[in-house]
């Protein structure tokens, strides 16, 4: 196992680069705090990457830059050969909270991004696609149910559909299942893997959980705080599709232990 593989040694099963960051930094002008320093990474088509690190390591800053929510202070942020200068429809995002709006039915929530960008008529047409997506996540038949009647896991499934409806080139996942109980969380992670495989999606996950990062990812970016920077890229060469059983294998344990040691070392600083 090559735990310290450089980005150039990425598994060949993945395609062309989709999202490229080079030497990205973020300094908050107000208090001159360096939130992010010299981050370079490449997300290849169909790959699943995670970023892990303690709080304050700049991973949410990184995600916000990648989502086009805040501008970087330096460096290049290029998605599908076009620089990211604001929110874009080829960026899909999912948060810790499902954030479904209670005055809209499930299907109306899912087509909301289309309604915002292309208007009501387009949203109406997109409902057929929303229906297909609901089937993919196992929520068929819940189209006209209001979110109050959905469980936490079901709500997150619906928000996956909302993220996918615009057919984004990259999925940015901000601790999407951390508000769920552990059993649902494991199950949703496996669902996420299945959906990503089915859609051939390129995904980028921010998480606090080492096992979650390992079970889902091809590459794990370990970050260190003060200033936030990339410490190491860990390549996970467990076979796909991953199963929850793999979490008990020695290899899985080895990777988890290795990442934990990286994070512990940083905690001593």
């Amino acid at each position, binding site marked *: 196992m090559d735990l310290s593989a450089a980005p150039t040694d990425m598994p060949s099963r993945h395609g062309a680069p989709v999202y490229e960051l080079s030497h990205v930094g973020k300094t908050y002008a107000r208090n001159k705090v360096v939130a992010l320093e010299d981050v370079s990474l490449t997300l290849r088509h169909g790959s699943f990457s995670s970023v892990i690190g303690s709080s304050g390591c700049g991973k949410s800053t990184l995600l916000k830059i990648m989502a086009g*929510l805040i501008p970087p202070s330096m460096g290049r942020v290029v998605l599908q050969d076009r620089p990211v200068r604001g*929110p874009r429809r080829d960026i899909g995002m999912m*948060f*810790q*909270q499902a*954030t479904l*709006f*209670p*005055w809209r039915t499930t299907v109306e929530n899912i087509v*909301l991004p289309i309604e915002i960008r292309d208007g009501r008529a387009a949203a109406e047409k997109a409902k057929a696609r929303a229906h297909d997506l609901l089937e993919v996540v196992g929520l068929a038949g819940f189209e006209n149910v209001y979110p109050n009647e959905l469980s936490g896991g079901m709500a997150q499934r619906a928000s996956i559909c909302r993220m996918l409806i615009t057919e984004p080139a990259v999925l940015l996942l901000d601790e999407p299942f951390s508000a769920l109980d552990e059993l649902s969380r494991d199950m949703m992670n496996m669902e996420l893997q299945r959906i990503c495989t089915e859609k051939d999606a390129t995904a980028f996950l921010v998480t606090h959980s080492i096992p979650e990062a390992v079970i889902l990812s091809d590459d794990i970016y370990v970050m260190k705080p003060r200033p936030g920077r990339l410490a190491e890229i860990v390549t996970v060469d467990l076979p796909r599709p991953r199963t929850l059983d793999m979490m008990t294998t020695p290899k899985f344990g080895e990777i988890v232990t290795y990442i934990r040691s990286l994070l512990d070392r940083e905690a001593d600083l």
Partner: protein
Amino acid sequence: MTDVNVAPVRDTSEDTVWVEEVSFIDRVPRSVSMIFVFVVFIALWQLTHALALVSPIILPSPGETFGDMLFVGHNLLTGGYMLPALWITILEVIYGFALAIAIGFSLGVLVGETAFGERAIMPYLVAIDTMPKVAFAPLFVAWLGFGIESKVALAAFIATFPIVVGTAAGLHAADENARMLFKTMGASRMQTLIKMKLPAGLPQIFTGLKIGAVGVMAGAITGEFLGGGKGFGELIRVAASQLNTPRVFSLILYLSLVGLALYALVTYAQRRIVFWHKERVGVSEH
């Protein structure tokens, strides 16, 4: 499989069935408790009257008051002289409330949505809100005359502020995630306001409307007390000046029915429009 030997337990003991204690109030239908309070109230009233603790001119007996209520009710139902007076007051309330909603909502959006409104306008609104608004009544009479206009103005003036505050607070109700989500979807400011902030704020907006609905009634009657006219407040004033206390009581009661109807209307609209939001405190049963 683990090999655990469990000694068979002889099941000779009793079932652990016991009765959970239910407090008395939970076993009684709501209507019964309400009637109970009403009966106690009337009984205390009657007792006060019977023991002559208070002069009958100041506090009439329940029977007298009830008799007068029948008289006023008859007068209203048969289109007597009180009906036009009541209608004038109802009009003042409706116009006043409509005006308060229009102004209050607009100001609320201005204050809640724009930094300029929040920084430059809100301090003045707070300053005006702390003034005793009833004291403006003479001004409204001087500006708008003794007709219903001055009453509508006072009623709207009192009801506007809770609606402003409710709307402004409502626009801040949406959480950070919802804002971020709308940002990632590339929503314009208008889209964010209409599709997210306003619906998310409807519960607070309706709270403001309810407080306003109570205030608008007080405004209309105060306006009639201080600015004359031909409304129901004038009837109360005349009855009071004649020491006809049973009449005062029964007029207030009919007036409160109008207020209650307005409040019920707002509550009904709230339940229809804000169907996803269940109020924790309210008159509703759920």
